[in-house]
C-alpha cells in the first residue's frame, strides 16, 4: 500500500476529514442565519401543525394525569388537595387568572417607555459588532436634564 495516496482517500484520512467537515458544519451558520444546532435541537418547533399538536398533546396528557388521579389514592396533608385533579385544575385556574389579569393591569399600570425620562440605549458592554439600533431616540431626555 502506498503512502502517497491523495488527501481524504485512505480510510483513516477520509474518516478524519469527514468528521472535521461535520464538526465544521455544526457551527457554520447557513445563509438564512440558521445555526445548524438549531435545526437539530429545535427544528421540530417549525414543523407544520405544531400548534395543534402541542394543544392536543398537552390537553390529552393533562387529562391523562387527572384520570390517573382517579386510580391513585393520594395522601395529601389537606383534604381539599386530595380531591381528583386538584393540582391540575388549580394550576390551570391560577395560570389563566394571572394571564388574564394582564389585560386590566396593563391598561392601568403601563405608561410611556420614557415615563421616568430615562429610556436609553443598551449597556456599554454589549457586542461591539452590534449595529446601532435605529429605533432608539438618538438624544433621549433624561431626568435631571434641563
Amino acid at each position, binding site marked *: 500500500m502506498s503512502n502517497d495516496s491523495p488527501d481524504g482517500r485512505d480510510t483513516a484520512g477520509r474518516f478524519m476529514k469527514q468528521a472535521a467537515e461535520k464538526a465544521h458544519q455544526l457551527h457554520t451558520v447557513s445563509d438564512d442565519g440558521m445555526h445548524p444546532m*438549531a435545526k437539530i435541537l429545535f427544528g421540530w418547533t417549525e414543523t407544520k401543525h405544531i400548534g395543534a399538536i402541542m394543544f392536543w398533546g398537552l390537553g390529552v396528557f393533562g387529562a391523562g*394525569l387527572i384520570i390517573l388521579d382517579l386510580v391513585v389514592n393520594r395522601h395529601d*396533608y389537606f383534604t381539599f388537595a386530595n380531591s381528583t385533579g386538584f393540582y391540575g385544575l388549580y394550576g390551570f385556574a391560577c395560570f389563566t387568572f394571572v394571564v388574564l389579569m394582564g*389585560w386590566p393591569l396593563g391598561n392601568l399600570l*403601563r*405608561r410611556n417607555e420614557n415615563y421616568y425620562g*430615562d429610556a436609553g440605549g443598551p*449597556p456599554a458592554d454589549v*457586542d461591539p*459588532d452590534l449595529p446601532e439600533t435605529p429605533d432608539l431616540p438618538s438624544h433621549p431626555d433624561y431626568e435631571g436634564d434641563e
Partner: protein
Amino acid sequence: MSAMLAALNPGWLLIFVGVVAMFLPARRIRQSLAIGAPLVGILMLALADQNVNHLTASVLGLDLVLYRVDGLSFVFGLAFLIAALLNAIYAWHTDDRIQDGMALAYGGAAIAAAFCGDLMTLFVFWEITAVTSVFMVLGAGTRASYFASMRYLGMQILSGVLLLAGIAYVYHDTGDIGLQVFEDLAQPGAMLIFIAFGIKAAFPFLHNWLQDSYSKASVVGAVVLSAFTTKLAVYAFARMFPGQDSLIWIGAIMTCFPVFFAVIENDLRKVLAYSTNNQIGFMICAIGVGTPLAMNGAVAHAFADIMFKGLLFMSMGAVLYRTGTTKASELGGLFRSMPWTTLFCLVGALSISAMPLFSAFVTKSMILSAVAHAGLPIIWLMLMFASAGVLEHSGIKIPYFAFFGHDSGKRVKEAPFNMLLAMGMAAFISIAIGIPALIPGLGYEWLYNLLPYRQEAMTYQPFTFDHVLTQMQLLVLATFAFVLLKRFNIYPPEKRGEILDTDWAYRRVGFSMANWAGTVWGKVGPAMTSVFFKLSSRAYDRIEATFSPRGELARGGLTGAMAVWTAALLGLVLLLAFISVR
C-alpha cells in the same frame, strides 16, 4: 499551609484579589485571578472545620468573630463561591478592570458576611457588598444606569444604617454583639435589624431597587448582582429570625404579587427581577415556618436559586449582548441563531418551574411540605398559586418570547464560548442537584447532605409518586392554559412601556416633591434674604438717624440730652435689678 488556608475567611481572599485585580492592566492575568480565587476559596472552605471560631479579634472592647463555618453558612458560602466562579467565566470576553475587580470583591464581601460570627463584622461586610455592587450597575455606562445606581446605593446604604442602629440598640440592651436569634420584634434593636434585612431581601414595598437596578445593569453586572445581595439577606434571616411568624405572611405575599407585574413587564431582565422577588418569597416564608424541614427547604432553595436564577440572567445577558435589547416586544425566534443559549435558558426555566428532574423540584417541595405540615392552608394555596405564576413568567414567558414565538428576524451570532461555558456549568448544577440519587450521595442527596438539619433532610423523599404526579398535573395543565390562551389569542401581547410599581412613590412623587421644594427654595430663599436685608437696613438707618453723632438725639433741643438719656437708662436698669433681686 493547609492550616493557614483553613483559618482564613475565603471571602477575604476574594476581596483582596478583587482589589488587586482592579489595578492589574493585564487582562488575562486579572481574569485568571478572578477564576482562581473562588477555586482556592472552595478548597479553603472544604478544609475548614465546622462550628469552630477560626479567627477572632477584639476591637474597642467588642469581641469579633471573623471566620466561623457552620451547617447554615456553609451552604450559602459554597453557593456564593460557585457563583463567583461562574461569574468570572461569564465575564471572560470583557475587558473592564473595575467590573472584574468589584465583582470579585462583591462576592467576597457576601461570603465574608456569611462566615462571620458577630453583628459588627456582619455590618462591615454588609456595607462592602453595597459599595462594591453599585459598580455592577454603573458598569453599564448609560445615564439611566447612573441614576439607577444612585437610587440603588441609597437603598443599600439605608439598609446598612438601619442595621448599625439596630446593632447599637442590641449592644446597649444586652452588651452582646454575637449573632443571635431575635424572637421579639417589639424590641427596637430587633425591629431595626429586621427592616435592614428586609430592604436587602426586597420585601414588598421595599422591592423596587431590584427591578430598577438589575434591568439597567451591564450584561455581566446583572448576572453578578443576581447571586449575592438578596441571598445574603435570606441567610441573615435564617440566622437571626428563624420561626418569626410575620415572615410567613411577608414571604407568601412576596411570592404572589410579583407574578402580576411579571406578566405585563416587557423587559425580560425586569421579569427576572420580579421572579427573584417571587423565589425569595418562598425562602422567607419557609424561614418564618422555622421547622427543620422548612429551614432545610429555604437553604436548599437558596442554593438552587443562585444557580438557576444566575443561569436565566446569563441567558438573557447573552441575548442582550448579541441583540442589544431584552425587550420581549423586540425579540423572538432567536433559537435559530442562538440554539445553545436557548437550550440553557430552557434548563433554567424548567429548573425554576420545579419540573421533576430539575433543581427546584427537590427544594421547593420541601418548603411546600413544611407549610402543609405546619397546617397553613391559605399560605400553602398562595405558594401553589405563585408556583403556577413562576411557570408563567420564568418558565414560559422568558424562553418563549426571547427564543420562540413571533420571529423578530434578528439573526445574530451564538453567544461567546465563555458565556456558553458558564451557562453550561450552571445548567449542569441545576440538573445534577435535581435528579434522583441513582448513585447514593449524588443527585439531590448531594445537596441534602449539606443542609443544616442533615438527618431530617436525608429522611425527606422528594421523588414520591404523589409528588411527581401532583407537580406534573400543575405544570402540564398550567402549560396547557398557556397554549389555550395563545391559541384563542387572549394572551396579552407584549407591549413597550414602563410599568408603574411602588417605586413610582419616590421616582415620581418623591422626585417631583424634591424638585418642587428645590424650585420653591430657589425663589423663596432670595426673597427671604432680600426682605431680611431690607428690614435690617431700615432698622440700621433708624438707629443711625437717632443715636449717631449726627443723629436726632445728638442735636436735640435739650443740651446734653445724651447725659439725661444715659441717666434714665441707668435708673431703669437699677430698678429692674432691684425688683429681680428682691
